[in-house]
């Protein structure tokens, strides 16, 4: 009985949503602020990736809010799963092929993650993607070896240092420029590595912070398995 009522209600809701989506034509250009960002982003910010310049320079304050939400999620998970008996991990070793393969691939994955967030203003990529790739590399090592440990003090120091760097760069824009997170370093030539002012520095800080947070989250979850 409950299922029939649910399907009926969802049918009515789906019909109205679909009939209002039929009025949005698919594939036509109707943006006004998107045109402004596309035309002026290379001269005003110096980065050729328009998404990066929107996330870091035009809407940089929202990125600060998102980094805070991820930090709260990671801390909240550690607080919910807190167990003061101090259980250690007892897992099995993986097989020989997985162990040797993980040992060979792990530095390459960390290098790929660092490449993705350092070149965030030239190619598709950025801080969040690079941080997630690094956390996946550390997860591979967690699952292959029984005794691979990560020092939690180092993770805390890395994360706090990256967060303080972000806010300090924003405040330096307030002191020497017009507003919070203004571009105070020289813009340089577009399409080169050392260009676009403060954008690479902020993305490196965000990438390190996201990688450290996701590693701590996975470590807290894996520690609770008996």
């Amino acid at each position, binding site marked *: 009985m409950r299922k029939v009522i649910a399907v009926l209600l969802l049918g009515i809701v789906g019909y109205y949503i679909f009939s209002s989506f039929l009025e949005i034509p698919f594939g036509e250009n109707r943006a006004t602020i998107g045109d402004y960002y596309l035309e002026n982003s290379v001269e005003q910010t110096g980065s050729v*990736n328009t*998404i990066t310049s929107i996330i870091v320079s035009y809407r940089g304050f929202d990125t600060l809010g998102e980094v805070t939400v991820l930090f709260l999620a990671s801390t909240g998970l550690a607080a919910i799963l807190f167990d003061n008996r101090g259980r250690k991990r007892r897992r099995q070793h993986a097989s020989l092929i997985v162990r040797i393969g993980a040992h060979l691939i792990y530095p390459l994955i960390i290098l790929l993650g660092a490449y*993705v967030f350092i070149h965030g203003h030239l190619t*598709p*990529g*950025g801080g*969040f*993607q690079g941080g*997630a*790739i690094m*956390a*996946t590399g550390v*997860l591979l090592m967690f699952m292959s070896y029984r005794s691979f440990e990560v020092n939690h003090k180092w993770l805390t120091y890395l994360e706090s240092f990256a967060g303080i760097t972000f806010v300090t760069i924003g405040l330096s824009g307030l002191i020497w420029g017009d507003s919070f997170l203004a571009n105070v370093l020289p813009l340089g030539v577009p399409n080169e590595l050392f260009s676009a002012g403060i954008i690479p520095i902020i993305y490196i800080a965000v990438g390190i912070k996201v990688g450290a947070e*996701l590693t701590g989250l*996975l470590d807290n*979850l*894996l520690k*609770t*398995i008996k």
Partner: protein
Amino acid sequence: MTDALTIMVYVLAVILIIAALFAVKQKDLLLAVIGTSAISVVLSIFFYILQAPDVALTEAAIGVALSTIIFVITIKKTERHEE
């Protein structure tokens, strides 16, 4: 869009809906999680076809790898079969 691309989009959309129904109706929770990660893979291909490479990278890195592993750890700590 050429004709081969349109046919591929239709086939992938059918696979997407079948994977979503499979994830909701299965009683074995591990198979439901595999259906969720199949949704993320097809979604990543759709984001690339719609000319959004940043979003495709993010969905492939976060939705496929990390979201599946936290579901599997939760299933290991609780029960595997529904009711």
